[in-house]
């Protein structure tokens, strides 16, 4: 037994067991998720959301939409937010020190004046320059806040400070909402007598190539370009075959930053969004969960499998790369901030299942893939393993991935059926075939770069970073 074959065997078994475990997890989560989605769809057929829209007992909502240099579309987007059918709601637009004329445009379009407003600094933020309200009664639900530039997390925290209602709904200002989106997001807060619902999220769909007019979605189309289309497939897989299962287990760690609702009181008690991480949306959810676990209060993070909002996906490799790089760094930073929960029974399901899963199968997956692939490639080049074995392995992974995607497409057709033409569905299947060849390696590489960038940042910033990290939010 040569030492080379020991190494190759060990390596092979390690990579293979990881892969098999991962695949089994996917299958289990996928099945569970579909079962839950089915359940939800049945429940949904009885629900008349309009009752909630006009009710005075419905939870009060403050919509927070941070805006930075969005002058081109901001008037339309604000108009569509103001036209949401919901009784007790306010819309707070936070102008994060835009360098363009966003603020002036808003003041003109909505007849705004600077109001005497006491900003309750429950969370520390950058300076607020002014709070504006409208003289026109039609726009009485609108508040515009002007502040010094501080980033998305800081802008949202300003919104939280100003919001006077019980629920805050954080939304990207260019996100297109479905008609009932707000109602669907608010309803879970009313359905849980034994647990406190602290946050809810829904499905984000890709708006590329869709017809949009006046801030409303008119017609759904499959994206014409490859990159947005493959992301559509990704989102279908993640939402239909993933989130619902986690939500049911009450282990959901991630609510999309594009659209989510939160219990304001808990957000404030946790200290608001953390501006020290690029993954502020995920980090807040994890921190809120941790807070509730530490106080042993029964709670829940809910998820709606219905598509609630539509957003533009990156269409170029460069922007996509940056996005995935950022997501990776955000995940790592969140995992690091809360590493005390890793396999810690004090944190229940969160510590024993959710966190380890994210660590091993979301954070480590690209690394294992990269190491596995290059490892096997090198072994093949040196003749330590057969080329045919290497290729067989590749084919195995490829075919499973393709199968999983096709299954996801089938589920999409059976449930929400957003893309109704046979041509479109076949296009999706083709995209699923091409994904592992063109898209997936790029995404893995972006994730690896994300890891490297984060390590580099830490090393080069040395002492400053160490000081920053020691001021972590506890509470």
């Amino acid at each position, binding site marked *: 037994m040569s030492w080379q074959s020991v190494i190759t065997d060990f390596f092979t078994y390690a990579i293979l067991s990881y892969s098999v475990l991962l695949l089994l997890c996917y299958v289990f989560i996928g099945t569970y998720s579909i079962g839950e989605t089915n359940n939800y769809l049945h429940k949904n057929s009885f629900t008349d959301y309009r009752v909630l829209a*006009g009710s005075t007992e419905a939870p009060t909502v403050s919509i927070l939409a941070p805006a930075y240099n969005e002058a081109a579309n901001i008037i339309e987007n604000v108009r569509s937010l103001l*036209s949401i*059918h919901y009784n007790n709601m306010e819309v707070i637009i936070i102008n994060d020190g835009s360098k363009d004329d966003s603020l002036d445009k808003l003041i003109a379009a909505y007849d705004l004046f600077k109001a005497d407003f006491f900003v309750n600094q429950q969370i520390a933020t950058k300076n607020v320059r002014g709070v504006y309200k409208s003289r026109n009664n039609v726009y009485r639900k609108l508040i515009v806040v002007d502040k010094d530039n501080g980033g998305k997390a800081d802008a949202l925290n300003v919104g939280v400070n100003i919001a006077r209602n019980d629920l805050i709904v954080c939304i990207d200002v260019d996100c297109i909402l479905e008609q009932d989106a707000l109602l669907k997001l608010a309803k879970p807060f009313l359905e849980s007598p034994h647990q406190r619902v602290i946050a809810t999220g829904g499905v984000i769909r890709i708006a590329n190539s869709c017809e949009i007019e006046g801030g409303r979605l008119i017609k759904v189309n499959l994206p014409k370009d490859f990159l947005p289309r493959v992301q559509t497939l990704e989102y279908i897989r993640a939402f239909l075959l993933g989130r619902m299962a986690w939500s049911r287990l009450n282990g959901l760690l991630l609510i999309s930053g594009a659209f989510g609702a939160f219990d304001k009181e808990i957000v404030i008690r946790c200290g608001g969004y953390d501006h020290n991480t690029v993954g502020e949306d995920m980090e807040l959810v994890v921190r809120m969960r941790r807070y509730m676990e530490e106080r042993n209060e029964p709670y829940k993070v809910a998820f709606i499998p219905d598509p609630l909002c539509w957003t533009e996906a990156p269409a170029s490799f460069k922007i996509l790369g940056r996005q995935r790089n950022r997501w990776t760094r955000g995940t790592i930073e969140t995992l690091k901030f809360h590493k005390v929960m890793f396999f810690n029974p004090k944190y229940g399901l969160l510590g024993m299942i959710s966190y380890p899963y994210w660590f091993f199968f979301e954070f480590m997956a690209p690394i294992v893939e990269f190491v596995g692939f290059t490892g096997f490639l090198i072994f093949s080049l040196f003749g330590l393993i057969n080329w045919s074995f290497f290729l067989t392995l590749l084919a195995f992974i490829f075919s499973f991935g393709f199968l999983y995607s096709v299954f996801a497409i089938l589920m999409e057709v059976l449930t929400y059926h957003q893309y109704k033409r046979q041509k479109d569905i076949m296009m999706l299947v083709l995209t699923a075939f091409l994904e592992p060849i063109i898209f997936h390696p790029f995404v893995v590489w972006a994730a690896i770069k994300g890891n490297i960038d984060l390590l580099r940042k830490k090393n080069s910033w040395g002492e400053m970073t160490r000081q920053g990290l020691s001021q972590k939010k506890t509470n």
Partner: protein
Amino acid sequence: MRILIAEDDDLMRKTLEFRLKRDGHQVIVTHDGREALEKIAEHLPDLVITDIMMPYSSGLEIIGAVRQNYTQKIPIIILSGMGQEDVVLEAFTLGADDYITKPFSPNELSVRVRRFAFTGAA
């Protein structure tokens, strides 16, 4: 009278159309707020009957737009399942002329519409 209907429910729309046509009116049907505003600009109806919760545009927005953009006072009747006091008040504040809640009686609607034929537009 020339009446424009904005209603997203197929059956309701056809019911309204049928009844109003039987009463002798000319009826323009639309499915949602956006289409309604287009057709109002195109046809300048004598009366508008609109639901509130519709895709793309709320019926309340239609009232606002019509009151702001047109000098002639086009009477607007709201026909909606939302009967809560504050919605009704808001509709009238914005300029609606009548508010009928669903479930409604087609006979009653017919009579109310006739009222506007006598008092209404030039």
